[in-house]
């Protein structure tokens, strides 16, 4: 006799994860290397500021919004922050996840307790739903948003929701929910290189270029 | 090592503190006991409540103890591990706690009855008692002869 839920879990942890890892890693590298190989022309203008330093600085400083920006777009900015922070707390500080990363890379760090993880998860999901709402309701975002954007946002929320349900045994068979959780992660990894999820990696390049362009002129960035 | 044992102690304390938080299950149990007492008085109908069937922590136990108090009878059974059978300060309401030979609590009950069955000598055991006593007497007789 087989436990179909366990079989699904093993499929999600086994062959499907392998495939997802292949697509995820190779896809991301393709996208990044392709940009780097393209390169840019040497700038002949005489630099006034320090382009390289400011480029690197901007990678970090652009994390904070300009004063007043929050008032104009509270849901997008606050929701965006909370979603990202919550997502990364749940992803990177939950010990079973650390164990996964350790298995993949050999890197490991201490985790935090369940109260923090679960609060972060709940808050991130609420923030994600708020982002979804504003995408749907706000005319600016609605006009910019493609169906893939909606899909990607929903796919990003699924691991949080399924993970929470599985760990807390809210409903369904916990093994099945765990299988769904890993399945949702596999799917997220597979779509990652083909969608705007790539910003998770390319944002640093974009901010660097922005900072270095402005920095050359001695302008703020 | 010191740190980890400190944190261990902290955690054990924490664990106990959390484990002993009252769940709020004591008051409904108490009203159930009152009702059961009514049945015992009216129809001599006993009731057994299994405290293992619901979440019931040390905190809940404390509430129960505060309300019920201690009564007149306190018996210890030695039957494959100890059992404590105690009449509470409310006559007709008994605590029956079974432990295994290692002393781990196996089951906890509240019995609303005149006397818990487990206290009574079972007829099978009495029969065996009769046999044993007879044997001992005859042995004694043999020895004196």
């Amino acid at each position, binding site marked *: 006799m087989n436990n179909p839920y366990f079989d699904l879990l093993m499929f999600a942890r086994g062959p499907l994860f392998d495939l997802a890892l292949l697509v995820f890693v190779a*896809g991301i590298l*393709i*996208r990044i290397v*392709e*940009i*780097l190989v*393209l*390169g*840019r*022309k040497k*700038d*002949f*203008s*005489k630099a*006034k*500021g320090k382009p390289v330093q400011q480029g690197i600085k*901007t*990678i970090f400083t*652009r*994390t904070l*919004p*300009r004063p*007043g*920006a929050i008032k*104009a*777009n509270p849901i*997008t*900015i606050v929701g*965006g922050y909370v979603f990202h922070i919550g997502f990364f707390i749940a992803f990177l500080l939950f010990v079973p996840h650390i164990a996964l990363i350790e298995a993949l890379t050999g890197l490991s760090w201490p985790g935090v307790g369940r109260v923090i993880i679960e609060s972060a998860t709940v808050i991130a999901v609420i923030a994600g739903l708020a982002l979804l709402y504003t995408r749907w309701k*706000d*005319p*600016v*975002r*609605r*006009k*910019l*948003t*493609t169906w893939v954007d909606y899909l990607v946002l929903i796919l990003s929320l699924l691991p949080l929701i399924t993970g929470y349900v599985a760990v807390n045994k809210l409903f369904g068979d916990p093994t099945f929910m765990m299988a769904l959780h890993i399945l949702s992660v596999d799917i997220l990894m597979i779509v990652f*290189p*083909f969608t*705007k999820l*790539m*910003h998770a990696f*390319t*944002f640093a*390049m*974009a*901010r*660097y*270029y*922005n*900072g270095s*362009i*402005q920095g*050359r*002129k*001695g*302008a*703020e*960035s | 090592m010191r740190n980890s044992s400190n944190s261990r102690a902290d955690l054990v304390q924490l664990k106990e503190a959390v484990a002993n938080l009252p769940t709020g299950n004591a008051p409904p149990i108490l009203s159930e006991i009152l009702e059961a007492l009514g049945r015992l008085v009216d129809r001599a109908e006993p009731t057994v409540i299994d405290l293992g069937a619901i979440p019931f922590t040390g905190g809940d136990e404390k509430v129960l103890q505060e309300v019920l108090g201690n009564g007149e009878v306190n018996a210890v059974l030695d039957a494959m591990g100890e059992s404590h059978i105690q009449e509470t300060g409310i006559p007709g309401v008994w605590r029956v706690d079974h432990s295994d030979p290692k002393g781990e609590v196996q089951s906890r009950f509240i019995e609303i009855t005149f006397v818990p069955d487990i206290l009574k000598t079972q007829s099978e055991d009495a029969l065996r008692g009769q046999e044993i006593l007879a044997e001992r007497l005859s042995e004694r007789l043999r020895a004196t002869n």
Partner: protein
Amino acid sequence: MSATAERGVNALREQIDAPVASFFSSCVSCGLCADACIFFQETQDPQYTPIRKVELLRRVWENEYTLFGRVKSMLGLGNTITEEDFTEMERLVYDSCTMCGRCTMVCPVGNDITMMIRKMREGMSAAGHAPVELIGAAKRHTKGNSPMGDLSKAIQSQVKHAIADTGIDIEFDKAGVDYLVILSAQEIAEYPEVIGAMAQIFAKAGVTWTISSEAFEATNVGVQIGNRDVAKYLVTRVVEAAEKLGVKKVISPECGHAYQALRWEGPNLIGREYGFEVVHIIELLDQLRAEGKLKTSGKDTDKITFHDPCQINRRGGINKEPRRLLNMVAENFVETDDAGTMNWCCSAGGGVGANERAGDLKNAAFQLKKRQFEKVAPDKIVTMCAFCHHTLENALEDNDMDIEVAGLTEMMAEYLDDED
């Protein structure tokens, strides 16, 4: 040889590099750039969301510069660009963008959207979709020596006036001097006082300078229109004149896009470093101030505020200099909201001012400035770009607002210390 969609697409193709690729890879369509845009702010029309204005560039990038996009195109899922697409984008790219650069500052992933608009205009202009007024200006500038046509006679007479007014001699084409002064057409035609102002300040400071009779005009409609061939042609005139005279430095005038064209784009347009340095007039004045060579006496008691030209502050890095200078001569200097790096555009930069079709949008955009000025209620607005100066003056008048507008250089000259 004429403009075609194909030529436009090819021009877009030429513009894509690693920064562009990283920008498009990073955009999450958050829409935060919308609120940074003066046109969106004043119309609340989502079509003016900045990132939407570079959609064609994005399509070329996706179709031709990504492996996955290539596969998509091969499967027939690519999104090719047609003549209609260019037509549709024209008003977004030219009428509703002053290339002010505010969107570049707020993008959370750091996309330089303004730079991509500049690139977008390469494609638009090559496809024949630049506004006719800008094309006209380009023609006049190519044939003559300024976007207003031939200003040779005008400059001669304005310099003569300045000499007469100040009693200081100004020589054309004088070799061996340190600085070459270049003006904007707007200054020559509308605000010639700046010539005398510079003459007085430089005389006091002991700065040696001249004006080229061949290349005395610094604006570059090629940069506004977004055509590097035209821009290169125009900037080459200045570079050649400056190198011929052998000056150490060229002074970029109080003009926003001229500063961009001359200092930052120019070397890349001609593909080499200059044999001279470019400084903005305000940078130079602040340097003279620091060296003690620019001294003033007395202060203007009017309530004065300062308007930051986008291309000089936000996209040019000159922020503190004008404020240090202004504080020397203004007793009652008050900043508007968002002043400095995040100042709002005068409403007509980036070629919008010349574009008649964009008139309504421009007026709408100015309402934001109007509210800001009303809040501060200044007697005088000082700026360091002749085109901002011109735009504000006209817009204030159109809106029945009685506020004087002045150039910073003139203002400094007015309070120049007379003692030796």
